[in-house]
Structures are given as C-alpha cells and as structure tokens.
C-alpha cells in the first residue's frame, strides 16, 4: 500500500546527507572535553556545529547551549529563569514541556488566556504579570494548530516589565524565519528532530548576559548551565539539518503552503470539519476539528488507509485526551477530542495530500457512524 507520512511535527526523518554527516563522527574516539588530540579533534567538530547552528539562528555561538531536546530546553529555560522563588507567565496553549511547569512551581505560574484562534496578546500577558514574575514564555508556533504567536508583543511586554522572555520555537525553526538577535528574545528552545535532524539533541539559546540557574549538576560542559557530555555526532547532524532547512526555507514555505491550501480546500468539502490553522501559521501544519468523531477512530481508519497522522495532543495511558490547546481556545470537550493534525516536511509530496484526501471523507463518515455520546 502507498503510505503517506503526514506527521513531521512529531518527528521528521533525516535526509541521507544528514545521516552521512553524522556517520564519520560516530567512529571517532574521544570526548570533546578532553585535552588530548582525540578530544581536541572532537571539540573542533562540536564547535563548528555550534557556530553553524548559531549562524542559522542569528545567535552567537556562545549563546547556544546544547541539551537533549526541546523538552529539556523548555524545562531548563523555565526553571532556570524562575530560580528558587521567581514566578512565570505562560500562555494557555503551551506544549506540556512548558505547561506542566505548573506541576512543579504551582501557584508561581500564571497562565495567560488566548483568543478563539489560540493567540495570546500583549494585554493578556500584561495582566498576568505579578510582582514575582521573572519570565514570560510564549511559544513561537503552536505544536497542534501551527498558529504563530505574537513573539514581538511577548518581547515588548517582558522588556517593559523588566523580566526575561522565552519562546518555545520547536515547531517554528526550519519552517518560518527565526532570527534570535532580531527577535529580542532572551531564551529560545529548539529541537533537532522536528527539522530533519537526529532525535536526542536540541538547544536552549541564552542571550549573552541573561542568567539561567542550572537545573542539573555535573561537569557543567555547556556554559556551566547544562551538564553531561555533548553527543558530537548528534550536534553535527543537528547543524546539517538546520543548515538545509534554513537554506530551503523560502521555497519550502511556498511549496508547503500550496500543499496546505490544497488539503484545506479538500477538507472543506467534508461537512462539519473546522480548520484550526488560521491566520499567521506554520506552513508545515494543518489542524482540523472533525465534529462528531473521536479523533482516535479517524486515526485508526486513516492508518488502515495508509495515512500516518496525529491528533497533535497528548495521551494518558494510551487513551486520547481532549486537547488542552483547543479547550483553551474555548472549544467544547467533544470538539477538543476530535482534532487531527497533518504536518508536512521536505519528503511530503502533492501525491501524499491526494492520498489523504482520497481516504479522508469515507474515514470521517465511518468514524461518525461509530460515534455515540
């Protein structure tokens, strides 16, 4: 069966050249922290990767702190900025690696509400500020809907309040232009495997002069903020993937936007389907609500029909849960449990979208027949 992989926002496969770039590194002996020849050789490769990533992000090399991925970058940003007693403001549509900081910091976290499209604004952020706020955190592109948040407003509110600004840019980097210096952000998180790099590495970009309290302890390899040996091969793959993604960003944005438009046009032919990717959004994501279904029934049928896609939201013990993002946008629990995310990458073709559109209407119809309140 012809299968279409439409879940790049979960993880996007590596290209052959990225794999090749890493392959030569794996076999080298040494630790980049060692002083001997082998260590120095690896250190040189690691720093080249760091410089490449920094250049592609509009950051200084010394501002790039490697870590294990987007989740660790977000955890480190929030806990590191809040410190032992500081407060945080986060938007109501953040990824769990940001949103669940409430489980750790409790009432020190204030949630800023979003509008019906899932966007936060300056007024919402401003009114969430408290005397103890140390950091404002709003994602760049939403991981479910793809909607872009107003990062400039975030930065402005943070600046005028004299607090740190952080953005989870995991779903943005490689899909929309991200320039760290120009953004005015203090902290920015990214992950390699969402943009065609390897799983297991990401980075927190920390503006020079901004202090982040380490959340773990050890050798302090990464700017004394993050400990643990940096996987050099993964960093090389990360850099190669980011270089490719940034180089093709403009043409890919046009191409993926066309694919998304085609998908949305096709979806509009199905009754009672609402498109949630509206306004400024990542060209790589189309998120819809299929009223009168359970999203996991549609997933089951699409999987059987050759489509890999996602609801975009979390499971609890394998049971699909209503999306916190859609709930924050004012949707009902039933609507929030009926979301589907299709996400694109470099390997996505027009044929993939046609394959999806060929099976989606009947899958929706069947899932509706299986749905009873």
């Amino acid at each position: 069966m012809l299968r279409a992989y439409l879940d790049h926002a979960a993880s996007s496969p590596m290209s052959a050249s990225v794999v090749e770039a890493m392959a030569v590194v794996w076999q080298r002996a040494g630790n980049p922290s060692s002083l001997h020849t082998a260590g120095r050789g690896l250190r040189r490769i690691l720093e080249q990767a760091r410089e490449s990533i920094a250049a592609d992000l509009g950051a200084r090399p010394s501002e790039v702190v490697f870590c294990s991925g987007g989740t660790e970058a977000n955890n480190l940003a929030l806990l590191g900025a809040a410190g032992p007693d500081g407060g945080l403001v986060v938007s109501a549509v953040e990824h769990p690696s940001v949103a669940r900081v409430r489980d750790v910091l409790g009432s020190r976290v204030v949630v800023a509400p979003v509008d019906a499209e899932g966007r936060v604004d300056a007024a919402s952020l401003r009114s969430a500020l408290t005397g103890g706020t140390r950091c404002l955190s709003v994602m760049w592109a939403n991981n479910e809907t793809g909607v872009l948040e107003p990062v400039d407003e975030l930065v402005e509110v943070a600046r005028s309040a004299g607090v740190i600004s952080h953005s989870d840019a995991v779903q943005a980097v490689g899909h929309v232009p991200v320039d760290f210096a120009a953004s005015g952000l203090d902290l920015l998180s990214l992950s390699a495997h969402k943009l065609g790099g390897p799983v297991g590495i990401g980075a927190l970009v920390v503006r020079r002069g901004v202090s982040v309290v380490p959340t773990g302890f050890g050798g302090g390899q990464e700017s004394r903020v993050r400990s643990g040996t940096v996987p050099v091969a993964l960093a090389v793959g990360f850099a190669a993937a980011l270089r490719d993604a940034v180089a093709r960003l403009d043409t890919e944005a046009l191409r993926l936007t066309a694919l998304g438009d085609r998908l949305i046009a096709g979806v509009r032919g199905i009754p009672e389907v609402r498109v949630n990717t509206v306004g400024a959004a990542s060209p790589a994501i189309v998120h819809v609500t299929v009223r009168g279904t359970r999203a996991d029934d549609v997933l089951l049928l699409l999987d059987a029909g050759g489509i890999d896609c996602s609801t975009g939201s979390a499971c609890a013990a394998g049971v699909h849960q209503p999306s916190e993002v859609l709930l924050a946008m004012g949707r009902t629990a039933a609507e929030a449990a009926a979301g589907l995310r299709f996400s694109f990458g470099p390997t996505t073709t027009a044929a993939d979208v046609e394959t999806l559109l060929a099976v989606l209407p009947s899958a929706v119809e069947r899932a509706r027949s299986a749905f009873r309140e």
Partner: protein
Amino acid sequence: MRILAAMSGGVDSAVAAARLVDAGHDVTGVHLALSKNPESYRSGARGCCSLEDSHDARRAADVLGIPFYVWDFAERFAAEVVEDFLAEYAAGRTPNPCLRCNEKIKFAAVLERGLALGFDALATGHYALTHRVGEEVQLHRAAEPRKDQSYVLGVLDQQQLRHSVFPLGTDGSKADVRAEAATRGLLVAKKPDSHDICFIPTGDTSGFLHDRLGRRAGDILDARGEVVGAHAGAHQFTVGQRHGLNLSVPAADGRPRYVLAVSPATNSVTVGPKEALAVRVIEGIRPTWTQGMVAGPWRGLAQWRAHSEPMAATIETAGDTVRVTLDAPAHGIAPGQAVVHYDGERVVGSATIARTYR
C-alpha cells in the same frame, strides 16, 4: 476478514491475535481502558485495567506488527459493571462481573464500535468454540474442559456470536499456549494468569465492598431466628459461603454451617446446615439465547459458576422466566449468579438466578 482483537495484556489474547495474523486476517489490536485512574492500579495489579497491562498489550501488538489502540470505556464500565456489581451485592445477590462485562462492554459497546468502524468481527482470548451451521453460529465448550470459558460467554446472542472469533477454543492446555507465545517471541509468555476481579486488583472483594457500601453491623441468625454471631455488613456474604462467619454460638450438632440467606432489608444473614442449601429448582430472569429462545421443556445441563460441574436438568421458559429443575439437588446456588444451560457441549442460553426452591 478485518478483525478487531481485544488484547488484555495477557498471554491468551496475544496468542489469539497472533494466530489470526498468521491466518492472513487484517488484525487491529485494541486494549480497553476500564479504570478511570489506571495509575492507581500500577503496583501489584494483575487485572485487565492497569498501565502495565496496557503496555504489555501494546508490546505484543508491536511484535505482531499490527496497529494498536487503547479505547476508553472507563465510564461505561463503571456504570454498567462496577455499579451493577455493587448494587447486586447491596441487594444481597452475588453478581459475576466478567459475564456482565462481556454482555455490556466487550461484545456490546466494543463490538458495536468495531463494526461501525468497518471491522467484521471481534476476537478474544476466551477458550470456547464456535461452529457455523447453515446461517447460524453455535457456541460450544472449548476442546479442553479444564480451560473452557464458555460459561462467561453464555450471555451472548446470535448477533454477537456472528461477529465473534475465539481462536483458542481448540487448545489442549494453557502450557501449549504459553509455549506458543514464547516461540512467537511474545514476552507475555511467562506472565501469571489473572484471577482477580479486574477492578479489585488487591483481590480483597470484602474490603472493596466495605469501602464502597459501608459497614453496617448486624446479626447472624440460625434457621430458628436465634442470634449466633455478628457481621459488619450483610452485603459481605454469599449464599453457600462457609468460611469467615466467625460464629460465636456453636452449632448444636457441631457440624459446619453455611450461609443460607442474605437479607439486606433487615441486614441479617441466616446460617444453617449444608442440607438446608439443597436446591432443586432455579428460577432465572433476564434470559439470553445463543440461537433464539427455546421454550421447552427440554432436557439439558445447567451450570451456575465458571467451573462448577454441569448438572442434568429440565429447562422450561415462560415469558421472561426460565425454570431449571435439577435431576438431583445441588448446593451453593446464589441469587445473582448466572445459570448457563447447555445441550451437550453447546451453549443454549443463560438467565440470572432470581430465586431457588428446595
């Protein structure tokens, strides 16, 4: 066929799914989430609701290379099975929640959802056989009597049986199924059997009933109405029960005493000698039929527990009442249990025991 394989996380359902894959069917695994907070069952649970079981089921599906989903039936399970279980005990009866789950959840809600999604059948790891005779599907005991689970499937009707697949019914022993699981690389091969009621993972039914129904002290009486002991709640007892009575007044004849009756209305439990438990006639309500109603009277076999000895009986149905007259008296038949009737090896139907007569 497109088959939905219910995968509990245990060895039987994993092997059942594997055989269907081998037979060339298009199989999708589904695990039922039946507990509202599976985390609470994490340690020591061997029931079908725990996180570990869900993981084991997923792992088996991955080894088989089939799609796998977890379906949340926690609310329905709580309403249809757990609440019913409590209500039955509160009314002095002895329910069988596994039968109830098969009737209301697995072969009802799950099967319906599967059929609506385009599946042709639901497969489980029950040990039972189905035979298609003409247009009809018959339900038979498994080839190996010690493994037979046809009793808990006795509530299924023809519509349900037409869409049911039991790949393990021909098996000789559990050891063979375990060996097969090991050969297939299914890590659940050595997993212990689950015997507990899945929503009471500690196995402490008495404690569960106390927690949910409360404690209410009352008297244990003998047949003459004399107080011979005390209890903490009549709902703790089952007709035919002998152990755990802690009677303070010894029996005059020194022989063991059994629970004869449980009366929630008066919160009393009546005990007496074994012969007082003897039952000749069972009256059942809510009849179900595997191939349609049989009015009778007809000669068959009656069974009222998962592994009790089937007893020869004459069975007659009038309206919604099934009357089972046993050839020889039997002991320990409790209201609330299901009586399943067989014609030889073939399951004919079931009823819920409402009353018994000597």
